[in-house]
C-alpha cells in the first residue's frame, strides 16, 4: 500500500498525475498547497473520501482556510505514523 504525498494544488499537473496513479489500496496525504484538493468536487477525491483514504496536514489546511470536507486532518506525528504504516511512499510535486 503506497502513501502518495501531494504538495501541489489542483491547478498543477502533479495533482492530476497523483490521482491517476492512486491504487485501490493506496492512501493520499495532502500537505502544503495539496490541501486545496479538499475544495474540489473531483470524483477521484470523493472516492478517496468515501473509503477514508484521504488525509491532510491540519496546520497546512488551517493556514489556507481549507476545511476537512470529510478528510482526516492530522498533525505531523500522525503523518509520521502513516509513513510507518504504508510503504513505499511516492511524492508528487
Amino acid at each position, binding site marked *: 500500500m503506497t502513501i502518495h*504525498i501531494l*504538495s501541489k494544488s489542483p491547478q498543477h499537473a502533479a495533482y492530476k498525475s497523483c490521482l491517476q496513479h492512486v491504487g485501490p489500496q493506496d492512501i493520499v496525504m495532502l*500537505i*502544503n*498547497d495539496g490541501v486545496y484538493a479538499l475544495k474540489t468536487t473531483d470524483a477521484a477525491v470523493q472516492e478517496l473520501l468515501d473509503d477514508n483514504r484521504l488525509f491532510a*496536514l491540519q*496546520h*497546512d489546511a488551517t*493556514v489556507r482556510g481549507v476545511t476537512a470536507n470529510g478528510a482526516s486532518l492530522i*498533525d*505531523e*506525528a500522525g*503523518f*509520521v*505514523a502513516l*509513513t*510507518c504504516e504504508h*510503504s*513505499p*511512499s511516492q*511524492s*508528487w*510535486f
Partner: protein
Amino acid sequence: MLFTLVIHSGPYSQTSSTSLNALNFAKALLKEGHTIHRLFFYGDGVFNLNAQMVTPQGEIDLPKAWHTLIEDHSIDSVVCIAAGARRGVLNDSEAKRHQKDSGNLLGSSDLSGLGQLIEAAATSERVITFG
C-alpha cells in the same frame, strides 16, 4: 524505524515551499522515537544549507533551523555536490577548487554525490521525499 528524507524544496517561503514540511516531519519523527539515517538535500533544496541566506524579519529562519536540528541530533546531512556547485552552495575546499572567494555551506552538512542517496535508500526502512 529508520528514515531518510530527501529535500528538493528551497527555503524561500514558509507556505509554498515544503522545506518547512520536511523540517517539521523530521522533528516529529525524532520525537516519536524514530531515527534519521540521512538528510539528502537535492536540487533547490541545497539552498537550505546556505549560510549566506538572510531571512526576512518575522519569518522562520529555515537554514538556521535545519542547522540546529542537524547539530543537536548529530544527523548525517548531505548536500548534493553537483546541485550545490550549480547554485553556488560550496564548502571552503570546493570554493577553492573552483576559484571562488569563500565557501558558504553551513558546517553541519557535507557535500557529496548521489551515491550517498543510493546508499541511504538501500539502508533506510523509509525514504520520504519533500518536493
